[in-house]
């Protein structure tokens, strides 16, 4: 059986960030499902929860990244999504601890590099072959 195309939810209200993530996902043959607000992400998850990955900004309109993480955890068919928080917000250490319990990876936008994110994607793809 041929492997289906991997799918990723990208939730960020900045078009440039979405373009960067989308381009890297596309290079790795991962389909992008791009939303710019919390409610769009939640609706997308409800419609098609079979994402392999979610790249989520914390600060969004109409719902936050935290809401999306909670929805992923609660959704029976979505809880295995590999979640990456990509945030430019100044998060406290306590918030980071909370994020660690809900997401597999936290990347600060200040420290984002193409190479780092490519490594994440490569690791994800190799693990799921």
């Amino acid at each position, binding site marked *: 059986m041929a492997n289906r195309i991997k*799918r990723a939810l990208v939730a960020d209200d900045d078009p440039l960030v979405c373009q960067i993530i989308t381009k890297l996902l596309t290079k790795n043959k991962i389909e992008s499902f791009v939303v710019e607000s919390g409610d769009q992400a939640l609706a997308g998850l409800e419609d098609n929860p079979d994402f392999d990955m979610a790249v989520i900004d914390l600060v969004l309109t109409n719902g936050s990244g935290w809401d999306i993480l909670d929805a992923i955890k609660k959704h029976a068919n979505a809880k295995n999504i590999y979640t990456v928080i990509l945030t430019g917000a100044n998060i406290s250490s306590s918030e980071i601890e909370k994020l660690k319990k809900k997401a597999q990876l936290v990347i600060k936008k200040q420290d984002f590099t193409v190479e780092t994110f490519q490594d994440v994607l490569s690791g994800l793809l190799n693990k799921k072959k």
Partner: protein
Amino acid sequence: MRLSKILDSGTPIFDSAPKNQERKAVLPRLQENPTPPVTSFKAPADNTDHQTATHQAEARPAVVYQSTAHPIATNQTSARQTAAHQTAINESIESLYNSLPDAIYSAAKQLEIPIPSNKNLVLQKAMKAMDRIITLIPAYDDKNEMLSLARNTANDLMMVISLDSNFAKSIRRSPKSELAFHSHCINTALIAMDLAKGLDNIECSPNEIGMAAILHDIGIPAMNLDFVWQETNDKNFIKHVAKGVELLTKLKAPDIIRTMVAQHHERLDGTGYPNGISGKDFLVCSQILSLSEGFERIACEHHHASDTTGSSLENYTQKILHNYRKAFNPDILKAFISMRGFYPDGTMVELTNRSICMVLKQNEGFPLKPVVQIVIDSAGNHPDTAKVIDLRAANHLAIIRIVTEDRRQTHSL
């Protein structure tokens, strides 16, 4: 003449950055790749084979990537961030760009994703912002429009610098005397942010330094003083520092911004004004602003003199070293010279083979080895075709001295 009229008349405000720095429009390339598709929320989801979706993502500990270069997690920073956030809520003037971290712009650049980077638009907007800031000075503005203008202007300028650092290296003051003040503040912001982004252990972000640079001399128009080309020790002029801080205090500007403005004429050896502080009291971010402000004056005064009197070329980078060698932290000066080059673009230099060359551009990190073009070869002839030498690669050649205009005339004869 009001700025709007000058802008509408098409008068060039700045020399544009090198023309070969235009970004490639590569979005079509992204769209040429049809698979896998990018699905927007409104588009129907792609129905792929769901039967294979049986993978189990391992619940492994989260990894947090954090920079350790900037020790910013302090209570003071938190207070500043809170104030900045509050101000951001009140923003009435939108930035041309969202203030994303540099890393995102670098990634976009690496992936050849086009970003709107109309430099002239940014500069025109910055000039208008300066004009508006000056207009706002007499009236206390409880909406903090002045701070918003300064912040957004700094963000926009930083955005362009992150795409093209040459943008900050081709500074020039407006030939219009009434816009010299505007140019000075914008140029200082460009120089300071360009320098700050390459340094560690600064008390604040490059954008905050840029914001302070935009506002650093607002005491001058606030006191109705004429903006002058040279630093002056005139007692009345010195008061512009305190006046600027007073204004920023009324506006509830963040502490770090006020501190930088208060220290922008200080020197590490205590010879600055108004307080003659020295040592650790002179913050790194303030030193960056102060050095940039001084360099802008020296460099633009040089351009101004050359344009109006045709006086001989002068190495203003060396002048910085001469004037400021004890005034700033050596590491900052070293970074500055490394970034700017020891021989500014356009300088005529003599090489070890006796050829006379003009400096074309800098090799960052190699301040003594710029790229040069031969004007008079070692045999005393003008080359028939343009010959460019990258001194970083030409180990057998080095610059031995700067050639003055008199020297060039001698060679020409």
